[in-house]
């Protein structure tokens, strides 16, 4: 696989992609060691629930007790953003995993068999792609009620069509190759041809692109939470923490930026998380683009 060596070489050469990898690694560490970085208070059953320090509606500035301050309703911002990193990986990995399975199954069916199967699957994706995904996701989360599961389902439902189309395209390109014809000639079953000959030769680019979409998925999930259609109140989630900050963007007279920490801190976490994936994605896009590569 000289391709992999080439890819690694390109990645190392590009400082931006290195920055992306470092950012993602930091988030992985924060997510994995969340119980050590922000220990769950004794007696609390659900670790993803942000602990509260009283019920005062006014946010409190950063202090020794609350490193990043508290939001309205006294949710601890530090605890929220650290465990929010875990929620982000949970949502991102789960959605991309499910969407890839759906995309590979439907994409191979459509691309390999063609004909009526292809037509039906593609018309269904047309319907899904015919209107803004955010609206559909909003309707679905509203219908299913606020929970992390609803967010997962909503984003999965709106994002599978794009992957199904992408993978179908890749398979179409390879279906007529000589070695596929040869496999067919010696009497291999459809399942074997797809699984052993077509998929291994066609889906790596799609797999890589999809996994780099984790940033985009987390951004959508945060937007849903921000709109009040995501996770239940108090769940460690970056989007919701910004939702808490909405009423506090302007401070009291004389000190307009008094509550900056409620807005800025959770936002920076989302920004850097998505930025990490996009930096890496941008580098890969150049590497995988056959029109630009190896010039």
């Amino acid at each position, binding site marked *: 696989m000289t391709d992999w060596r080439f890819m690694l070489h390109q990645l190392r050469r590009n400082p*931006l992609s290195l920055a992306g990898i470092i950012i993602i690694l930091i988030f992985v560490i924060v997510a994995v060691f969340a119980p050590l970085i922000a220990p769950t208070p004794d007696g609390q059953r659900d670790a993803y629930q942000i602990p509260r320090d009283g019920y005062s509606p006014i946010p409190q500035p950063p202090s020794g007790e609350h490193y990043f301050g508290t939001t309205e309703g006294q949710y601890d911002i530090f605890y929220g953003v650290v465990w929010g990193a875990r929620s982000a990986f949970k949502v991102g990995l789960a959605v991309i995993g499910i969407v890839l399975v759906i995309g590979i199954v439907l994409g191979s069916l459509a691309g390999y068999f063609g004909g009526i199967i292809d037509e039906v699957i593609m*018309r*269904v994706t*047309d*319907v*899904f*792609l*015919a*209107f*803004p*995904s*955010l*609206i*559909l996701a*909003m*309707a*679905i989360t*509203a*219908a*299913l009620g606020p929970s992390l599961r609803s967010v997962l389902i909503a984003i999965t439902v709106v994002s599978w069509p794009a992957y199904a189309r992408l993978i179908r395209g890749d398979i179409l390109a390879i279906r007529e190759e000589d070695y596929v014809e040869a496999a067919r000639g010696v009497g291999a079953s459809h399942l074997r041809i797809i699984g052993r000959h077509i998929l291994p030769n066609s889906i790596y680019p799609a797999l890589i692109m999809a996994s780099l979409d984790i*940033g985009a998925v987390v*951004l959508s999930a*945060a*937007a849903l939470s*921000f*709109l*009040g*259609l995501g996770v239940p109140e108090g769940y460690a989630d970056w*989007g919701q923490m*910004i939702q808490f*900050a*909405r009423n506090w*963007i*302007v*401070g009291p007279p004389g000190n*307009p*930026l008094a509550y*900056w920490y409620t*807005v*800025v801190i959770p*936002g920076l976490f*989302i*920004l850097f998380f*998505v*930025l990490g994936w*996009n*930096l890496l994605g*941008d580098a890969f*896009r150049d590497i995988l*683009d056959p*029109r*630009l590569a190896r*010039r």
Partner: protein
Amino acid sequence: MELRAYIIRRLILLIPVMFGVSLLIFGVVQFFSPVQRATLYVSDPRQLAHLDEVVDKYGLNDPFWEQYGTWLNQLFHGNLGWSKIVAAPVGEAILKFLPTSLELALFAAPLIIIGGIFLGSKAAANKDKAIDHVSRVGAIIGWSLPTFWLGLVLLMVFYGYFRGLLPPERLSTEMNLLVNSDSFHQYTHLHTVDAILNGNLRVLGDSLRHLVLPVITLTVVNLAFVMRLMRSSMLESLGKGYVLTARAKGLDERTVVNKHARRNALIPVLTISGYLFAAIVSGVVITETIFNFKGLGWLAWQSAVHLDIPTVLGFALFTATVFVLANLVVDLLYARIDPRVRLGGRAK
């Protein structure tokens, strides 16, 4: 004549898409129990005691297909249902909120498209030089920014720190009264256009002041996307044989870049304008929500949060229609820009 047949055929294709979209939303609504949906029809607390009657009256316990049939039948009679949020028929509600979003898009779209094309081709023409790196990093950051957070930070600075310099909402209270008074004639309901037609500079200034932040918010994220696409398509086009030919025959670099390379590089950008449209609509939902800029996006958000199903359905059908029409226009433009493209399939 061929063109007309092509347009008609494309419009007919709209029907199955609409059918699918409505079926999809209708399917989502079925997650609610009949009683839950019945409460949506209740306007008087006393009726809550008789929810069964409401369920019976609106046929909420009927099989899925019957309910869908009823809704479809109503739709064919021009009835999209009653919007609880606006307290008006859904069709009317959409028309009422449309101008606000249109005004926002009218200012943001040219910035996104022209700005993106300009910056993208600049970056490609100066590949691996400072301008390319700066615009590349700028684009990646812009595109990683959560729209809702960017909006809030902008408000924090320009509304909070600079004491109401660039405020949220669409007009100040005073101007709002003026716009809705008899002395101001609302021709289009686009405040900036109406202000010019009325010759009222104060309304024009005020509405522009309110437009700045939403337009910036909407532009930043989408501009990055167009720019990146334009850059890679321009790079490809600069490597083509005809560019080499143009250079070889001694054309100056400006003509080569602007005429030979850029025009061909525009085609992929055009292709994704449909996608861009969808992105702007999603962006509009979040932008309008943050800035309390009450247009269609704000309406969609309110109706989704308050489970105003007829309004959500109406909005979905509306955006799907506009989306399909936008794609049709793109295809027609396509044929104008690229002489190799022939509409209606077979080339002769």
